[in-house]
């Protein structure tokens, strides 16, 4: 497959949606601003023109009920895609997602199902502060009946999105805002990426770096920094957060005997704790060196100087790995920082 066709992450989601809407008339897209001039970073830009206002529509500010709308339409065999400008707004939808969407199939012993996709953008960057930056994947991963995916590459974005639409269950599809502009190879034809599979992005022998969503980008940079001191990191993009692909992680850890999990979210009862616990369960007698990282256990501050402290970055990841592998010398190593173009390039106002 020639890897020449490059799309951005946002374009990949657009294309996935477009192809599915063309293929399946029961797919529709709705949510605040989906038909507005900006079309949610271009991912929904002209659907209302292409498919009409029944299949791409704006809504009143009523997140709870609008989630319920999707659930009800899904019960009727439609395939709703509900778009949220910020993941934080899902906190208004928890009842419909967890008490309703996640339960219909089970409680009816399989009579009904809820094939619905909930798109949630994590709003990091440009002073998003406490209520526009949260990454709540672990809350959803906690709940049986929901699936949770958070692809990082444009390739996975397209494949996972098509998979999410065709999946007969409610799927929380997590998009990091800093990824929208990322470019990568995306085949034109329709394809799916199955859930429950992690992706080894870079091979390495010395440490397994498992990361989620934007932290994958940081982990890849950390890998470069670690190279300069002779540490060869394997970088795994978890992609699917529920279910989690423990096998791929575990296989890697068996090789490297060291594990660092970097979640794009808080640690406490988070994905990072879960990966550690799962890997430990698979390796009961021979647990590797490990560490986990995530957002600082505080509310996200707005001002840049504090926000910089809040998020792990390639340097803090590389240092953590170094400390883990070379116990006594780690604290003094200050790698040359790497340019985080996607963070710097992002400017307000939005």
């Amino acid at each position, binding site marked *: 497959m020639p890897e020449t066709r490059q799309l951005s992450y946002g374009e990949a989601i657009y294309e996935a949606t477009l192809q599915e809407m063309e293929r399946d008339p029961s797919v529709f897209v709705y949510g605040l601003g989906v038909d507005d001039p900006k079309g949610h970073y271009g991912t929904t830009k002209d659907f209302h023109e292409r498919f009409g206002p029944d299949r791409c529509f704006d809504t*009143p500010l*009523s997140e709870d009920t609008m989630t319920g709308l999707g659930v009800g339409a899904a019960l009727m065999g439609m395939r709703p895609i509900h778009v949220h400008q910020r993941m934080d707004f899902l906190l208004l939808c928890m009842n419909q997602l967890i008490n309703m969407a996640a339960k219909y199939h089970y*409680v*009816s012993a399989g009579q009904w199902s809820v094939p619905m996709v909930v798109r949630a953008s994590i709003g990091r960057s440009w002073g998003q502060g406490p209520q526009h930056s949260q990454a709540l994947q672990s809350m959803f991963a906690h709940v049986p009946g929901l699936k949770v995916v958070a692809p990082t590459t444009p390739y996975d974005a397209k494949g996972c999105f098509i998979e999410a639409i065709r999946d007969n269950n409610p799927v929380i599809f997590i998009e990091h805002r800093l990824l929208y502009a990322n470019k990568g190879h995306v085949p034109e034809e329709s394809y799916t990426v199955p859930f429950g599979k992690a992706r080894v992005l870079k091979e390495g022998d010395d440490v397994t770096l498992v990361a989620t969503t934007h932290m994958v980008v940081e982990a890849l940079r950390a890998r470069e920094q670690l190279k300069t001191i002779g540490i060869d990191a394997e970088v795994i993009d978890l992609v699917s957060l529920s279910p989690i692909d423990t096998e791929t992680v575990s296989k890697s850890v068996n090789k490297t005997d060291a594990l660092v999990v970097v979640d794009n979210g808080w640690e406490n009862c988070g994905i990072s704790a879960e990966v550690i616990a799962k890997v430990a369960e698979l390796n009961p007698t021979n647990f590797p060196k490990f560490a986990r990282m995530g957002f600082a256990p505080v509310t996200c501050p707005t001002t840049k100087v504090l926000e910089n402290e809040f998020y792990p970055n390639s340097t803090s990841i590389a240092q953590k790995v170094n400390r883990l592998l070379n116990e006594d010398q780690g604290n003094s190593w200050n790698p040359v920082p790497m340019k985080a173009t996607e963070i710097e390039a992002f400017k307000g106002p939005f």
Partner: protein
Amino acid sequence: MLTIRLVEEKVAVIYHTDAVKSPVHLSIGQEAPSVAVCAALEKNDMVIGTYRGHALYLAREGDLDAMVAELYGKSEGCGRGKAGSMHLGDKSIGMPHTSAIVATGMPNAIGVAFAQKFKKENAITACFIGDGAVDEGAVSESMNFAGLKKLPLLIIVENNQFAIHSPISTRMPRPNFVERAAAFNVAGASVMDNDLDSMLSTSQAAIDHVRSGQGPFLLEIATYRWKEHVGPGDDWALGYRTKEDASPWFENDPLKLCGERIAADRRLALESKVKEQITRAFDRAEKGTFPDPAEMWDNVYA
């Protein structure tokens, strides 16, 4: 209606045996709204109910055996025992399994009605909620959206005057459901006389309104729950309402009045037929099989 009453009375009688290991919210005394609305609905319409769902399930001609088996937690139940009394439903009667979180079926009704309109099915959705449910934000949001999109939605407020033990006066500054609906461009009407004929004719008119594309309609039906909020007993002793308050409701019991209109012999024949069906249903449920423990793992994902 008779079936509903007699089934529930039977549930109330056998409840102490612990055959039903789950809360039951009986509709005794308030069967009529479900019966009236369902009589006016078409087969391809959809209904959304609540945890107080026996009446709706039966009025919608849900399978009696499957319902009783469900209460007994048996495999033959309409949710294979996973649902229980609070979550009755059946795809074949267009009734999604109900929610025990108050008012949360309402947004789903919006979605169902949206799909009906989208598919041009000429079908409508009838969503039942209680008088307490109306204060949930989801109901206002839903009325707003239904009004906005002129969805084929009939909202039935079964106003039994209480949310558990709380009277309306402690919950609503202006206890006028039809007026509240109007603020969202949802048409409305109230049937306050506990009369089955009024309920039937108003339901029919409301449904005609909805089906003809004129947009959503809220139908308030005053009714009365005879039993305690949850469970088989009476609760006059609790003191939040009195038997005197209840007496007009007993006297105007639609089932009783309806029965009086039928010739005695026909009525007796009918009663004995229904009783027979009920006895059979409870027998079958009793003899039914519990699901295999491994079934716990089924249906987590579709």
